[in-house]
């Protein structure tokens, strides 16, 4: 079991496909233009699964998950 998780969203890579914030709205959100933002960089354990799903479905590989 992982203890803590951080997510990073690379705004340079992000092209606004919107998969992350649609699939994991508790972890990611949309800015006014439809590009992705991270709600809170530290992801609580109950949202780890959602964060992985959002990150894994980004067509631009713009999201990195750091687990420690």
């Amino acid at each position, binding site marked *: 079991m992982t203890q803590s998780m951080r997510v990073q969203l690379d705004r340079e890579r992000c*092209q606004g*496909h919107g998969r992350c914030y*649609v699939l994991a709205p508790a972890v990611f959100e949309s800015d006014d*233009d*439809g590009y992705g933002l991270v709600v809170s960089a530290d992801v609580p354990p109950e949202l780890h699964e959602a964060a992985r799903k959002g990150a*894994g479905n980004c*067509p631009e*590989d713009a999201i990195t998950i750091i687990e420690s």
Partner: protein
Amino acid sequence: MSDTDDGIDLTGPPQEMYKFLRDHMPVMAVEHEMMTGTSVTLHADVTTVLQNADIFSSLGAAEIGQVRPLIPLEIDPPEHSKYRKLLDPLCAPRRVALLESSTRALVNDLIDAVIDDGACNFHTSVAEPLPSQVFLTMFGLPVERTPEFIELKDGIIRPPVENFDEATEFRNMTGQKIYAVLQEAIEEKKANPTDDFISQFLDAEVDGHRLSENDVLDIGYLFFLAGLDTVTASLDCMLAYLAQNPTEQKRLVDSPDDIPAAMEELLRWESPVAGVIRVATQDTELSGCPIQAGDKVSVNLGSANTDERFWTDADKVDFDREINKHIAFGGGVHRCLGSHLARMELRVGLEEWHKRVPSYELKPGITPEYTMGLRSVDNLELVWRT
């Protein structure tokens, strides 16, 4: 049916042909009147091209009767992002959400018109009018003239002529008519601005400058062609699939919450916009094959989306797929500007149709015939019990 000299039926589902190309000629020279250049089918090469707009320019990517580069499709970075900054908010999920209830009402009107017949041509009864009316309203063009606009976009996408030269001529002629329609709308919105796109474009600034009237025409021209046929083709592909796969169809009827995931999987599998074009700006290579500056590169999105080198169970349509980062809307800086709108229209269309028509199939004797490039199914005759 249109057969090639080798007897391959080009109107059938294309996935097997994509696999053949990937396995035998993943980087292939193509030489026909529509395009001379190189076609790429591997997911890795496709993403390389899409992600490197400096090496693979999109200027000259489309020949659809335009007289100046289309905005933003044929504009390369860094210019490109100036236009996207202006256009992205207009097409963002928040804006699209405001159109959902009127779209739902429209789908129901379209279904009302056919439901008691127990049969319809889905393409002409639903898939074509739905995006056309949503788009024309949003854009600021008169909805009463929908049939005329559908004819105009068909004149570009499928010119009703025999050979390539005639097609080019027909496209250019139709293009002039589209510019005229847009010019007329611009004049009208200048006099009476409303909250539609054309009015907002006229009011918008890029880098402190107002958009020129030509800019507005060049954006309008692209939207006109990108906003109409793509959603139609996607709905056609999805309904054709579901009509032939009763288990999956029943699942959408019984569990409407599965519709978004099903829609993404069908976008992957069908890739209704089969490919895009780029032009190499310098000598380079793809999978070790040389590409020369000036070469056109045809980028096969449908093949990338079904490449077993990238996907697990690539040839299985799986609504439970956990990871689905398909590129049916392209990728890199030119990611489809209308993707949020398109997804809303497709989802609402699928939701309402399966609520109202819980069991349907292809009319006996019908084999769906897909058009090439933009994969619509004009003969999508469906039947159901009333």
